[in-house]
């Protein structure tokens, strides 16, 4: 073959490689939903297992479909037709534009096109369902299934993509700057995914109230999860999936950046685990595996906003602090009688905030200006999420109710909503 002929294949070859990495990342983000599922059922009681699995499985389906219907075009509207920088919509359904060329669809300087329209949609779609899953964990064991799905459809279909568009869709937040700072920085979604899920979880937990027996006569009771091995499987799979969550957020397979992102991600997770375990060893004189699990997730959520900005030591520090935060936050939310069976508030909300702020404290962008930008970004998205959650949940509460009946809660949602048991062969000593 001629040299020029061969050479003309290079951009296509580049696209193939980068797109391949993005497809691997899609799968990894997909498998996080299994991680969330087993984590959540592991940390809750056996009598609600089918219910939680149902929610987690269907949320992927619902998430993908709503994202196809409108989410994707709300999040990446191209131009903000409705409100400049705040709201745009590119129409219902998915499909590339008429002049679509994968070689230029998402071209990076010096690299060329890095993925196709389809990869873009699927990667973003897999992210979308995550936010609802966070809520699912926090309100587990007492939230009505129908109310949850109505909420999820609206939240994943509208709120998540609109807030996301402010930054990743090229909206106002992405160019918002103070002084020297070069705009809000949220690499893979500490704010846009984790706190967006976290704020909704906070509102939902507040509105639905604690589980029966959790706070009795001013005492905090532990309601143990029923299957620690499943929880452990969950956390390993989430870490595994985070390789794609963060690694894919590079949006190309650029070797130096992606590999460094994987290193910072892993170091933060490792440091988070150690720190949470050591802090809880000191406080509770016990090697608390449940806190180790939360520590890993804390480190992962914490590094997510700045995984591309940090050095190895930065990421270790972010992990250490995240691990300590999560231990404190679990106790803090318990003190406030916000009952969160799986620690979703502590992990996703508290450490999502920490991770966002950490970009202003550690790493390449650290500085007072950046810190303020991060803070304002958090405040703006937080306020929006809280208000939207209220706007969605209050009418549902009035019309359908958020909470299952007392007898249903005591006997388990599985038997009442699904007429099915998770473990029919096993003798269960339900609590």
């Amino acid at each position, binding site marked *: 073959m001629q040299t020029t002929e061969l050479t003309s294949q290079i951009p296509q070859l580049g696209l193939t490689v980068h797109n391949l990495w993005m497809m691997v990342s899609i799968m990894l983000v997909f498998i996080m939903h299994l991680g969330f599922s087993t984590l959540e059922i592991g940390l809750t009681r056996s009598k609600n297992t089918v219910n939680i699995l149902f929610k987690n499985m269907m949320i992927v389906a619902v998430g993908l479909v709503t994202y196809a219907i409108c989410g994707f075009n709300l999040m990446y509207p191209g131009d903000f037709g409705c409100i400049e920088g705040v709201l745009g919509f590119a129409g219902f359904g998915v499909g590339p534009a008429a002049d679509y060329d994968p070689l230029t669809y998402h071209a990076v300087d010096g690299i060329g096109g890095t993925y196709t329209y389809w990869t873009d949609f699927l990667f973003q779609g897999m992210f979308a369902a995550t936010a609802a899953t966070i809520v699912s964990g926090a309100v587990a064991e007492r939230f009505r299934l129908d109310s949850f799905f109505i909420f999820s459809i609206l939240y994943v279909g509208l709120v998540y993509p609109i807030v996301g568009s402010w930054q990743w869709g090229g909206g106002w937040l992405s160019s918002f700057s103070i002084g020297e700072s070069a705009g809000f920085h949220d690499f893979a979604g500490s704010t846009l995914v984790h706190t967006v899920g976290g704020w909704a979880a906070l509102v939902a937990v507040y509105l639905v109230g604690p589980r029966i*027996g959790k706070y009795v006569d001013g005492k905090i009771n532990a309601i143990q999860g029923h299957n620690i091995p499943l929880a452990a499987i969950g956390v390993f799979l989430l870490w595994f999936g985070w390789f794609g969550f963060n690694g894919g957020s590079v949006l190309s397979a650029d070797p130096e950046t992606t590999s460094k992102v994987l290193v910072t991600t892993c170091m933060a997770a490792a440091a988070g685990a150690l720190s949470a375990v050591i802090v809880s060893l000191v406080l509770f004189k016990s090697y608390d595996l449940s806190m180790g699990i939360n520590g890993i997730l804390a480190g992962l959520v914490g590094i997510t906003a700045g995984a591309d900005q940090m050095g190895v030591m930065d990421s270790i520090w972010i992990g250490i602090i995240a691990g300590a935060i999560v231990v404190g936050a679990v106790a803090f939310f318990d003190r406030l009688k916000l009952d969160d069976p799986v620690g979703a508030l502590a992990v996703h909300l508290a450490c999502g905030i920490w991770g966002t702020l950490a970009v202003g404290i550690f790493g390449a962008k650290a500085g007072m200006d950046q810190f303020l930008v991060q803070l304002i970004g958090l405040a703006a998205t937080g306020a929006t999420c809280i208000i939207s959650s209220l706007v969605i949940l209050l009418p549902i509460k009035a019309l359908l109710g958020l909470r299952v009946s007392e*007898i249903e809660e*005591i*006997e388990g949602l599985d*038997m009442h909503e*699904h*007429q*099915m048991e998770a473990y029919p062969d096993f*003798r*269960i*000593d*339900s609590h």
Partner: protein
Amino acid sequence: MKKIEAIIRKSRFEEVRKALYKVEIHFFTYWDVTGQGNETEAHVYRGVSYTASDIQRRHISFVCNNEYAEPAIQAILAAARTGEVGDGKIFVSEVLESYRIRTGEQGSVSLKENR
């Protein structure tokens, strides 16, 4: 000495526990059993709906001195009742002897508080 056995709904267990505490029954043993009775439960599994009359219940058993028996029975009757079919049963029988393993005590003293 009497042995009281109660077969109750799992969902009433915490109430029964509290009620027994009030009549000074601090010791008992329980385990989960399957009850076959009047009540049935609806199930759905892979498109087959069916009803099962095997229902999980909790079996509470304790031995107490005679004077404690009647209050304990009344306590359980009150706390375990929902009024729906399937509330369960209480059975009373005679026990000849009792021992506390820790101390080797025998007879009614072995059923009294002793730390």
